[in-house]
């Protein structure tokens, strides 16, 4: 379809370049959603939804549907379900999430083992395989990313108000329920788009880790969002670049870079001279 561009090793081949585009997309779009989840103190919700997506993968394998579609259906329904449970009875949010976690992964394994070889069929979904991404896959991820960007342009400000102060937003007349459900659906979309690339078990990390690093050094929400996107993209680039020469799983390598960066930033902030920290005050 499109020939390989003259990029240096390890991005010289067409498949490596597709992998790069796909990973960069995940690095950019996952933190955009993640910033709102972290602010809402729901850092783990991404993981819960990913587990539900796994049930969808298993179901797809079992009935012979492309697992991405069935995963998307499961994840969106699961995400909205968790959010509705949380909105109705706040205390149950944590438990509801745990329930979705376990049932999701168990259902996925049961379905997939009924469908055939559990390991062979599900490993690419669990840990991702960016080198297997086709141009169709790249276009799909790109389209989803544009949806996320458009949604943020329209609802980002209101969403920020809702995740920072839900009670106030309700009194102010913002559509708290609709915005929360929309955020949940977008989370599900990003997770399913990223699961073939960095894996079901690790995609949620890309929503949280870049944001965790960015909020340590940023001084505004907007700044945190921008820096998190840069960190996400940077982690994807570096992680993918070192994965092949070192023989690492690409998804895990990307997440590892993001985690190492967080550790470095946290350490630097702790040990930085007080004068430097106070400088901007």
């Amino acid at each position, binding site marked *: 379809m499109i020939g390989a561009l003259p990029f240096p090793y390890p991005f010289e081949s067409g498949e490596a370049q597709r992998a790069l585009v796909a990973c960069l997309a995940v690095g950019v779009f996952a933190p955009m959603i993640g910033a709102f989840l972290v602010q809402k103190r729901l850092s783990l919700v991404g993981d819960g939804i990913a587990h539900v997506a796994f049930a969808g993968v298993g179901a797809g394998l079992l009935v012979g549907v492309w697992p991405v579609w069935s995963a998307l259906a499961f994840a969106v329904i699961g995400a909205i379900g968790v959010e509705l449970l949380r909105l109705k009875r706040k205390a149950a949010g944590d438990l509801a999430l745990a329930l979705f976690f376990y049932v999701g992964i168990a259902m996925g394994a049961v379905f997939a083992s009924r469908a055939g070889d559990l390991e062979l069929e599900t490993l690419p979904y669990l840990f991702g395989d960016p080198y297997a991404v086709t141009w169709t896959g790249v276009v799909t991820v790109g389209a989803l990313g544009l949806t996320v960007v458009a949604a943020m342009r329209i609802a980002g400000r209101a969403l920020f108000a809702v995740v*920072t102060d839900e009670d106030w937003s309700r009194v102010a007349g913002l559509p708290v329920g609709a915005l929360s459900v929309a955020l949940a659906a977008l989370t599900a979309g990003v997770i399913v788009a990223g699961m073939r690339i960095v894996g079901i078990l690790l995609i949620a990390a890309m929503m949280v880790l870049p944001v965790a690093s960015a909020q340590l050094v940023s001084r505004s*929400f907007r700044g945190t969002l921008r820096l998190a996107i840069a960190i996400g993209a940077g982690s994807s680039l570096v992680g993918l670049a070192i994965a092949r020469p070192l023989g690492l799983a690409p998804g895990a390598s990307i997440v590892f870079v993001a985690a190492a960066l967080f550790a470095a930033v946290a350490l630097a902030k702790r040990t930085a001279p007080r004068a430097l920290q106070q400088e901007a005050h």
Partner: protein
Amino acid sequence: MGAEPTQHLPEREARNDEILAYARDVSFGYGHDPVLRDVSLTVRAGEFVALVGPNGSGKSTLLKVLLGALPAPSGRVELLGRAPGDVRDRWRVGYVPQRPSLLSEMPATVEEIVAAGRLRQRGWWRGLTASDHAAVGHAIESVGLGELAGRPLNELSIGQQQRAFIARAFAGDPALLVLDEPIAGVDAESQRRFRDSLVHLIRQHGAGVLLVSHELAAVADVIDRVVVLKERVVFDGSPAELAARGVSLGVHREDLPLWLEDLR
């Protein structure tokens, strides 16, 4: 702080008598425990009403009922002339919650927080215009945080944070401002700023204010009516009338709730 503790506001311009918040014979209970019994309350435009009462007297519950966050099982409630659930121009109601759920690790500037107060003016999906930004700046100035507008909220003192939340309510240019214990534990400077900005809102914008607080000393000279709640309304009148019954807002700044215990 004003020197004359009992002096009232001077004549206001363009005072209309629009009823902003209205409750009549409202009762409410959690399970079998009654919290509110036949409570009636009215807040009009241009009026400063203080709602006081001992802990557990139902103040916060009454606010929630008025704002539509809790349904009133009996009695009648109106917000801006409608049932709370049917109010379309909700942005006309400014609200300062008791303990904002914010304050995580996530940095958010004063400006970002206050800008949320403008979201409902033209629709939350639209971007903010130059006049929105001007209103945000004006609101931040009015609570004395102008110099700190770009600072993250989690670097400010409790009093400054609370002023930011008050500015968020001001930014919407509210016709009715409802505040739930906004100055608990706030420094004197912030209390003075708080008083001045409420006076500004009432005098210049003709807004009505409903304030729940234990600490009324800072605003004692500008309050029009005090409503004392103890499940039912045990007093509704001017601070002077309250003083005639032995409770002076300006004096008992620390132990107002205790003094209210004696009021029957």
